[in-house]
Structures are given as C-alpha cells and as structure tokens.
C-alpha cells in the first residue's frame, strides 16, 4: 500500500461525487427528508421518540452510507475502470482504503446531518455529549462503507445492490432494537441479535443519548463494531479482485 496512490484514489472518488450535482444534492437532502418524515411522525409521542431516536439515527446512518458506497463502487466495476486499475501496480489495499477515505468524508457529513437534524430540529431529548455520539456514528459509518464495498463485489448492477438492502437490513432493523429493545425480544432471538453489528451501535448510542454515559462506558460495544468494520475490510480485500 502506498500513501501516494491511496490519496490519489481518495481525491478522485471525492471529485467524482462532487461533480455529480444531483447525487450530491441527494446525499444531503435525502437524509433530511427521511429524518423529518420519521421524526415528526412521532411528534405527539415525545417519550417514544426519545426512546427510538438512537435506533433511527443508527439505522439511517448505516443505510445511507451503504447505498452511497455500494452504488458508487459498483459503477467503478461496471464501467471497467476497476479492471483498468488492476492492470496498474495498485494493490487491493490502495483501492479499498482510497475508497474508504474518499467516501468517508461524505458519509461522515451525511451522518452528522442525520444526528444534528434529529437532535435539534426534530428536537429529541438527549443527555450525553454530541461529539461522543458522533464518534459512535463514525465507527458505524466506516462499517457501512466497508459493507457497501463488500456487497457491491457480489452485485452485477445497481438493482442488485438495492436488492441487498432488505436482506441486510430487515434482520438488523427487527433484531437490533429499532422496533423494540433487544431485551424484550423472544429468547431465541437474543443470540442472533447480539451477533448483529447494528445492535451494538444502537446500544452504544442509546447509552450515551438516553443515559448520559460516556464513550468509555460503551467501549465494548464500539470495539465489537470496530471489529466488524475491520473484518469486513479484510474480507472485501479478498473479494475485491472479482471483476
């Protein structure tokens, strides 16, 4: 892996995103619209909103990051430029880390928008520190970027990337505490729920937002999430050569 190539790839990825005005607008507007819709639908039930807000923020952060990354990386594959990159001395690590860095800037902005909008405009009550919530979301975002890259290696077109969404997200939404707290799930779902990465993100965010805990108190959750992100990066590195 070389610093020069990695940054060149990251810069190029960012440039492409910035050039695409419509996508850029979507990156920033879509989360706002969705969070407004979801958030204000709870406006009569402040208690419920406060309780589900960490889960909503986590789910949409992951979802938007996944779609942004998955589709962009797939385009690299389908337009043939990825193949072209493979006939250069560029390593898989360069490509993946370059993409990760390039997407991360936009994914992070997206996540920040989701967080700030939910907290300040939808007006959720929270206790912990905002920056600590953001740190949790950043780890989740890195996981989402890697998940997008990983999934796109198994997709042949944009449509298939979108088809991954129900498969990857339905179990997480139902089991990770979005619909109801993990503790209230039937016993046989508790185990699987613990395995899902989103469960740990939701729990960490919930502890900080609702209980006012600090990052140090949710380190074990963050560690699990980070392990998933790293693991996916390693797996993606093994699969990324597929063209």
């Amino acid at each position: 892996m070389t610093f020069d190539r990695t940054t060149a790839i990251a810069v190029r990825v960012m440039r492409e995103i910035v050039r695409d005005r419509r996508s850029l607008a979507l990156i920033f507007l879509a989360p706002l619209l969705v969070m407004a819709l979801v958030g204000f639908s709870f406006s009569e039930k402040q208690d419920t909103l406060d309780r589900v807000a960490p889960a909503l923020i986590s789910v949409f952060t992951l979802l938007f990051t996944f779609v942004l990354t998955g589709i962009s990386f797939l385009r690299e594959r389908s337009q043939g430029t990825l193949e072209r990159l493979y006939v250069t001395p560029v390593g898989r690590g360069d490509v993946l880390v370059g993409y990760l860095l390039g997407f991360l800037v936009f994914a992070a902005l997206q996540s920040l928008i989701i967080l700030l909008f939910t907290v300040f405009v939808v007006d959720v009550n929270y206790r912990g520190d905002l920056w600590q919530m953001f740190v949790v979301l950043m780890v989740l975002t890195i996981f989402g970027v890697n998940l997008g890259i990983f999934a796109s290696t198994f997709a042949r077109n944009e449509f298939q990337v979108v088809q991954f969404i129900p498969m990857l997200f339905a179990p997480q939404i139902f089991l990770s505490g979005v619909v109801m707290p993990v503790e209230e799930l039937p016993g046989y779902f508790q185990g699987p729920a613990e395995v899902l990465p989103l469960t740990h993100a939701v729990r960490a965010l919930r502890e900080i937002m609702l209980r006012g805990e600090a990052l140090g108190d949710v380190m074990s959750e963050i560690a699990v999430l980070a392990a998933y992100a790293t693991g996916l990066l390693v797996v993606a590195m093994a699969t990324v050569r597929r063209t």
Partner: protein
Amino acid sequence: MASEHDNGGRGGTMRGPEQRPAVEARGLSFAFGRRPVLRDLVLSVQPGTAFGMLGANGSGKTTLVRLLAGLLKPDSGDVRVLGNPPGPGFSDRIGYMPQLNALYMSLTVRENVEFFARMCGVKDRQARTAAVDSVLELVELADRGRDRITSLSGGMRQRVSLAVALVHTPPVLLLDEPTVGLDPELRATFWKHFGRMTREGTTILISSHTMDDASHCDRLGFLRDGRFIAQGTPDELRSTTGVASASLEDAFLHLVRSGSLDGAPSS
C-alpha cells in the same frame, strides 16, 4: 518517473529469433464456465514489433488480451510478459487499453490521464504533467484537456482511453481494438506513432477487425477455434489464399470460411 524502469527490450536494435519474446503464451487454455474460448494457444511476440490479432466476433481476442494483462487466470498453460507472469508487480510495464473505453465519465480528460499515470507510478508532479501533456498532444486532444469525458464524442473518448494506456510509456502495449471509431486521418496518424514506438523498442499487441490496421502490423495472427490457425507477416497471410493478387481482406475471408484448418500454416 516514467523513465525509471528499464524498458525491458526497449532500445534493442538487434532482433533475432534468439531474443526472448516480449509477449508469450504456451499451451494456453481458457474457458468461461463450460464454454472453451482458448485451446492450447501458442503466441510469441518479439520485442519491438506490432502483432495484430484478427478473428471473428467472439473468437477470443479480448479474452486473450485480458489473460495477458493478468485479469484472467489461465486454466492451463503459461503466459509471460517480458519474461514474467502478469501480475501486480509488473503491471506498470503494460499499457492496457480495454475494448470498452473505461474512463471516469465525470472527470476531465486531463484528470483521467493524470490519475492513471499516478497509479502507474509516475510520482513526480512535473514529470506527470509533462507526460500527460505529451500524450494528449499525441492523441490530438491537447485543447480538450479540461473537458469532461461526458462532453466528448465517441472517437475522442477512444483517444483518451488510448492516452491512458500510453501515458507511462510502458514497454508493452495491449490494445483491444484501439482504432474503432477513429476517422481515417487520425488512424493514419496513430499508425505513424505506433510505428515510431515499435522502432524505439515498444512491443504492441493489437486486436482489430480492419484490414487497414492489419496491413500496418509486423505480424498477424488469425484467431479461430481457440487458437491461431494462421500466423505470419501480412504478405505471408495474403499468400495463404493461393491467389497472387489476393488482398488481406481476401485472406481474412478465406480463413473465416475455410473449415477446420488444423494443418494450416502456423509459423
């Protein structure tokens, strides 16, 4: 820098059969699933020559190029470029132009060429700018450097794609139908450049459907049923028809139409 690597074979004026081939395939077989594409193919391209691959649609030209570029792994047999099996370690010595012009559509001409130059290890900014300038000059797009690919015509995109393959001045060029969509004047200019490059020691493997391209190559190979059923200089191929006045086109059609040619000339 582009000139850093010793351009294996470049500048070699002595050419002879004793010289190591720049591009080589031995007993090469490859199948997509259960469809065999290449069968026991043999190829040997001497350094500093242009080898033209001809063959019907689907005969396996692109597949062979991708095998040589290291994008596909042979089922059996052996592929060598400058003596090495193709792979990440040696790929800066290959200039690859895929059949479909793989470019970043929302980036400009310059940005595309410069990006790939950087990927190929042209690190120094000044050297890179100079390399991009000169290759854009070569494909006659110097005045379109700041235009996005989306705003270019098909032939212009093809030229950018060629520029990307040439920018790091690799000693081996693998060009998959590089002249498709080029106007005749530009095509003539390109062959002038290709001629200069081979004289300077660059090895060019090129696939094409046009007899015009074929006539410019030092050697031609006619791909059919997974192997080269005929190889030789354009003149030698012309004579395979047995008709003295035959054109390359006649030879081509003759080779396409004649049945199984297992005993055909394959020098």
